[in-house]
């Protein structure tokens, strides 16, 4: 049964790779219709958590529900996932890449997919192999945002990207966000730039949720930005 309040429900989630503990008892519920910032140092389990929600990684133990269901092929249709690593084919043009990916998803929004590259200053006729790092990152985001999935998982969409591209990416995430319908989980180290985008902030530490609170409440309680708080907690 889909839970009407939460799109994601996680209880006691553990994930162990061989002998490495990536997730060490995550309890987390994500409300529908909000944008979450997933913050934490390298190795804190952000990517593993996102992959588990996306249904790409099986939990070692614990329970994950996406829209009330265990992650599977059926839930993958509801989740748009932007991986940290690159999954683009360099011989295709930007346009061909979009057409290729569109075939996989019933919720592909052709109108958006046609409009987004221009906003992201991508030339649809350019070869993917000739794109700069920032352009590739923007193309990945176009692919994730061209779907109207109720749950969007963005794993480090800002990492290794120049500041103008970062600003553009943030503006497009905000601009394409379907108010009240979509839930976005956005993992990043660039807390300062993404700060204003988050409804709620989840701090991960050593494979556990150290803190989950609304960004406005954190700012009000600590009289500082989420960025400052993050530095205080992790520096």
């Amino acid at each position, binding site marked *: 049964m889909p839970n009407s309040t939460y799109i994601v429900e996680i209880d006691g989630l553990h994930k162990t790779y061989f002998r490495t503990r990536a997730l060490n008892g995550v309890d987390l519920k994500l409300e529908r219709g909000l944008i979450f910032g997933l913050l934490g140092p390298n190795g804190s389990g952000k990517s593993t958590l996102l992959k588990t929600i996306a249904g790409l990684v099986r939990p070692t133990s614990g329970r994950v529900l996406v829209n009330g269901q265990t992650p599977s092929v059926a839930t993958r249709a509801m989740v748009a996932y932007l991986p940290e690593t690159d999954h683009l084919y360099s011989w295709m043009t930007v346009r061909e890449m979009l057409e290729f990916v569109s075939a996989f998803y019933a919720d592909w929004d052709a109108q958006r997919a046609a409009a987004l590259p221009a906003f992201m200053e991508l030339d649809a006729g350019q070869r993917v192999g000739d794109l700069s790092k920032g352009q590739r990152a923007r193309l990945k985001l176009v692919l994730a945002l061209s779907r109207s999935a109720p749950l969007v998982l963005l794993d480090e969409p800002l990492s290794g990207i120049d500041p103008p591209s970062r600003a553009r990416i943030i503006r497009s995430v905000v601009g394409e966000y379907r*108010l009240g319908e979509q839930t976005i989980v956005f993992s990043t180290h660039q807390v300062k730039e993404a700060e204003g*985008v988050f*409804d709620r902030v989840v701090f991960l530490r050593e494979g556990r949720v150290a803190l989950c609170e609304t960004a406005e409440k954190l*700012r009000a309680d600590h009289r500082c930005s989420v960025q400052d708080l993050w530095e205080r907690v992790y520096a």
Partner: protein
Amino acid sequence: MRLDFDPARPIYLQIVDEIRRAVARGELAPGDRIPSLRELAQHAGVNPNTVQRAFQEMERMRLTETLRGQGTFICGDPDLVARLRAEMARDALGAFLREMFSLGYTADDIRRLLDAALNEQTKRGDAGAE
């Protein structure tokens, strides 16, 4: 709209204040259309939920009104500008007085210091200038 937010205050209130200030200064007039929720969110790089909350607050304050299918406008109320200026002056005075009292000044001290500061301003000929 400014893009740099004060980290210690709720962002939605800062958006409301930005619009109030623009009306009080005459940069926005009653009846002017303000940017849509999406435009504002995109321009400021801010969560649309936050902007929506700011819009609700502005409506509650009767600062704006939304006309279905046409957009959000600064209220046509002719007293709006006077009311906003009075409200903002009261807020600024309140903040000033709280700060002075917290520093240990009495009401008489504050009157004296304020008079002196105003006289100084007049002498320099820049009273009222920013």
